[in-house]
């Protein structure tokens, strides 16, 4: 217990040391932490309005930072690739919310602006979108462990509730439930702030050092992701059951986008 409180005492100081002077500012970090906390609650714990879907998270984070378009540029490929992640019969639960809030926040707060991968001839800009999407994928995967730890803590706290089955103190149950809600909020917010610092200080500067061949591959990534995501969803529907409807939608929208719009 004492070592844990020691960690908690050292953590704020370490965090303070990791923040470059005013970049990102404390205000921005706390605001993004708050947003990530609220959206993490929405993901499973509270309401489940789907504002925690990657595309909405990207746009909302971008809007909070003053550039929703950059949020859309990163959020769209992530949304398409995660479209098949459904909470049914699946044991993997990534934490895309914190990773995405941090990624969009890091890009916008660094003064960069991103545009649609289909709307720019600049391969470096598309490669940067790819670089940030890789970061979201890696950090979201790491978030799976955090979420599993949180759920194990829920179980231990739930066992604590057995005392109420003996003494009838109803308030304890409410307190445990509120503690679980607060933990989710804290996990989302703190993870986003830490990732924001990592991305801003290490990940984004590393992009300039990447070899040309990696940059070229990263430029191709956002163009390949939608295909994989859509393919994953078609597999979810079942190819035999869905091909006619999917093919019909594809032909119509291809023709409309190509020849009408």
């Amino acid at each position, binding site marked *: 217990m004492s070592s844990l409180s020691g960690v908690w005492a050292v953590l704020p100081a370490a965090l303070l040391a990791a923040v470059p002077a005013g970049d990102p500012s404390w205000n921005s970090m706390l605001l993004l932490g708050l947003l990530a906390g609220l959206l993490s609650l929405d993901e499973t714990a509270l309401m489940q309005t789907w504002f925690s879907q990657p595309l909405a998270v990207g746009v909302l984070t971008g809007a909070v930072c003053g550039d929703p378009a950059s949020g859309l540029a990163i959020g769209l490929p992530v949304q398409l690739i995660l479209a098949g992640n459904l909470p049914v019969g699946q044991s993997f639960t990534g934490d895309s919310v914190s990773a995405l809030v941090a990624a969009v926040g890091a890009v916008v707060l660094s003064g960069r602006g991103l545009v649609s991968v289909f709307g720019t001839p600049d391969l470096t800009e598309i490669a940067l979108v790819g670089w940030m999407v890789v970061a979201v994928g890696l950090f979201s995967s790491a978030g799976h462990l955090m979420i599993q730890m949180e759920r194990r803590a829920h179980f231990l706290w739930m066992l604590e509730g057995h005392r109420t089955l003996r003494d009838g103190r109803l308030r304890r149950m409410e307190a445990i439930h509120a503690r679980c809600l607060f933990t989710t909020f804290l996990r989302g917010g703190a993870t986003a702030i830490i990732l924001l610092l990592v991305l801003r200080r290490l990940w984004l500067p590393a992009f300039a050092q990447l070899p040309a061949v990696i940059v070229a*591959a990263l430029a191709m990534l956002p163009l390949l992701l939608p295909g994989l995501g859509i393919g994953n969803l078609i597999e979810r529907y079942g190819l035999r059951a869905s091909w006619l409807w999917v093919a019909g939608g594809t032909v119509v929208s291809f023709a409309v986008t190509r020849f009408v719009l």
Partner: protein
Amino acid sequence: MRAVTRQPDRGVRKLGFALKVRLFMRSLSLQASWNHERMQNLGLLVAMLPWARRHRGDLNRDRTFCRRYYEYFNTNPYLANFVIGGLVRLEDDRAAGLDVPLGMTATFRDSLGRAFASLGDQLFWLGLRPAVVMAICLLGLFWQMAALISVIALFAVGQLVVRWRSLDQGYRLGLDLVDLLQDKRWHRGIAAVERTGMILTGMTAGTYLALVTDSGLPVNHNLLWFGVAVGLGLPVALRRRLPGEVLILVALGLALLLTFAVLLSGS
């Protein structure tokens, strides 16, 4: 006294507004304390506590009440209020002196919870969610930010209305909720939503292909098409659903392979 198996006809019953608001607010956090062993048990108990506080009895009654709801429970969060409304009705009937055996609460909770979990998974997770996600992606491809946020907001309000109304409906029907499950409109609705999702998936794919071919990017278009075809076909060929996070790494590997192929061919 005779044990009830159907909901006794005692006129149209409605939840009191204040109690309904409290039950509704708490039901929104049903999954907050989700755990692998008993899933939503604590969430269900906390949602039911406003009723227990209103009918506060002796210590023993409170303890028995908590025990009834502290066992395994899992259902779909969007349809959970049917079950919660029904459970409140059973508690009301018991408090009013009707013979509701203790085991009936557990049977009702477990069987209805499972049935609504299955319906909700098909309707929301496999039907509505892919459809809404594809709709917002389609809008995203056309850079319509306000519209895509509006679609999510529309869903958010819609599901809150469903949850609010289902609380009343669950309470009104009580044990007769079983009849609601047999309504053919559930399955018609699920089929329609799934079909809409498939069409929207196709529309997103079509728009994406049109934008890729029309993008004017300075990349080798043959390789790009090859990559797109592999991307679309790989999950179907693998017959496995990989988490999106893993697919990002698969795509990165594929992109690296294609880039090296370009370098080796010298084009």
